[in-house]
């Protein structure tokens, strides 16, 4: 009888094993925020939100929600910040970052940053004295476009692009306001196009041999040319199979008189219904002299899907020059006039012109109207 009871108890225990939840050991240090002493931003407060640890099979899942309040302790306004997020279990193969673009934080002012993440690690993972996840400053960009930080994630370039886009869009909106072109302003800030919704897509970056059994087809890449771009896309091609794009390649020419040190190529994907999605931009470091031509190839495979998870059938690929960095450190981004001249498609034009700053200002305009927008533009300009 006793052995039977033991067997029943053991079997029930095995059956209930997957239901076991809540890690018993929550005493370890999960997240550490470490800023260098000379950092121009320092945490004023650090609050761990509803952080939980759950067992899932042979893994422990940590839901970490950190709310930071940072203060500009420097003597210059900060207009962008990148925080690097590193988990010891993934290091050095995977990491994350949280970027705050379009800031205008004066010395002494404070601003909030939230870091929400989920870490899944094997239960058998080695324990260490340091925190499982570390958050630190990677780059801070000042209003004079000088930067602070180790910049391990090439954040300075990204923050500079965001800041230049922000300045472009502020000037454009200020011009619309000053000249009383309010219908254009309304249209720009998403009140003119009734059915406009942000075009979302799902993305997967893959490495290694092809997974799909579908036959690959060579697809020509159409260039979207900005008239005044210092680097012009000439032609390109990619291997496409279903919703996968492999090794997209584009020929570019430096049409300026300056030496180029990097080019960020933007990619637009057209689905089988003719809808265009801006898939993003990839910066490729390269040295191109004036009037020289070179080829840019993206390694690996990209897999696209709709937000619902349904694979997106790729019918077309387009490319454009998102930004160019010259050897002297200066940066070029397309102007509003360049974007307007590049395409007649209003939706695509909007996709190309939408910047983080425009997104932020649109929120202010919808909440506080024209007066709120004027006030904000006056504050940051």
């Amino acid at each position, binding site marked *: 009888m006793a052995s039977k009871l033991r067997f029943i108890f053991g079997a029930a225990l*095995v*059956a*209930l*094993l*997957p*239901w076991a939840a809540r890690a018993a050991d929550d005493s370890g240090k999960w997240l550490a925020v470490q800023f260098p002493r000379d950092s121009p931003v320092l945490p004023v407060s650090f609050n761990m939100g509803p952080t939980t640890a759950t067992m*899932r*099979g042979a*893994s422990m899942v940590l839901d970490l929600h950190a709310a930071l309040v940072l203060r500009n302790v420097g003597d210059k306004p900060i207009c962008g910040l990148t925080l690097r997020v590193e*988990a010891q*279990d*993934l290091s050095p*193969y*995977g*990491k*994350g*970052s*949280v*970027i*705050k*673009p*379009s800031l205008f934080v004066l010395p002494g002012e404070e*601003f*909030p940053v939230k870091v*929400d*993440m*989920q*870490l*899944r*690690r*094997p239960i058998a*993972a080695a324990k260490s004295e340091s925190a499982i996840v570390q958050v630190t400053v990677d780059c801070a960009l000042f209003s004079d476009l000088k930067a602070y930080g180790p910049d391990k*994630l*090439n954040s300075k370039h990204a923050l500079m692009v965001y800041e230049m886009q922000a300045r472009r869009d502020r000037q454009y909106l200020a011009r619309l306001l000053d000249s009383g072109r309010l219908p254009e302003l309304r249209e720009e800030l998403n009140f003119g196009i009734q059915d406009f919704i942000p075009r*979302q*897509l*799902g*993305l*997967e*970056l*893959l*490495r*290694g*041999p092809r*997974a799909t059994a579908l036959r690959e087809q060579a697809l020509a890449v159409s260039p979207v040319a900005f008239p005044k771009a210092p680097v012009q896309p000439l032609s390109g091609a990619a291997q496409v199979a279903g919703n996968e794009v492999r090794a997209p390649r584009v020929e570019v020419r430096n049409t300026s008189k300056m030496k180029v040190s990097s080019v960020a190529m933007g*990619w637009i994907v057209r689905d089988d219904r003719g809808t265009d999605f801006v*898939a*993003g*931009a*990839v910066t490729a470091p390269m040295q191109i002299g004036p009037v020289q031509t070179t080829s840019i190839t*993206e390694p*690996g495979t*990209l897999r696209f899907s709709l937000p619902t998870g349904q694979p997106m059938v790729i019918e077309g690929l387009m490319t454009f020059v998102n930004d160019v960095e010259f050897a002297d450190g200066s940066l070029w981004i397309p102007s509003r006039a360049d974007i307007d001249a590049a395409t007649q498609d209003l939706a695509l034009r909007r996709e190309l012109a939408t910047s*983080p*700053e425009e*997104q*932020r200002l649109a*929120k*202010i305009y919808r*909440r506080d109207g024209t007066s709120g927008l004027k006030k904000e533009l006056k504050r940051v300009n």
Partner: protein
Amino acid sequence: MSANPVRHPSAEILSLYSAGDLPLLLRLRTGRHVRCCAACEQQVLSFRLVKTELRREASSQILTGFEAIADWHALESDMLGNIRVGVAASRCIEKVGHTRKFVLRLAWAAGMAALFMGGWLARIPAEDSQRILTALRKAVGLEQPQFYGTIVRSTPEGIVVRAQGASLTILNPQSAVVSMSGPSSVTARYADDDSGQVTITNVYGQ
């Protein structure tokens, strides 16, 4: 150092041992003692003798009783019939009991399996299941190892990077616009409803 005093089995144990009624372990232990202990061996023998004597006595009494039965054949038929009915009934009951036990055990096992599967499906991530399945298939030679995998992927919850058996997801709201930001990085952009500020999360893989 002092020698352990010899502990003899009790009379009841020896009696049961002599009749072969002890449980296996106790029987072996008692047997080992009896083979080495003359006194206990003698005791067991005496129990067996008494038992044999009693049997013999009983047998003789029964035979005496049988002699008194006049219609032996009729009684024999009657008894055999009763025995057959009894045996058939016990077999029938035995089958019913076995079937019920079997069904109960099967139901219990199925319940436990369902509970386990429910727990597995609800709690174990699909990629873990896939990994275990793949490992099993590789172990039995059904699948060749392939160096192919997702480096970074967007999900409704956020952007995920996997490496070294662990994964990191930088969470974002569902309204976030996802795009690629490098050869092995994916980005999500969204405006925070509370602060009105724009946040961009990036996840990098290798």
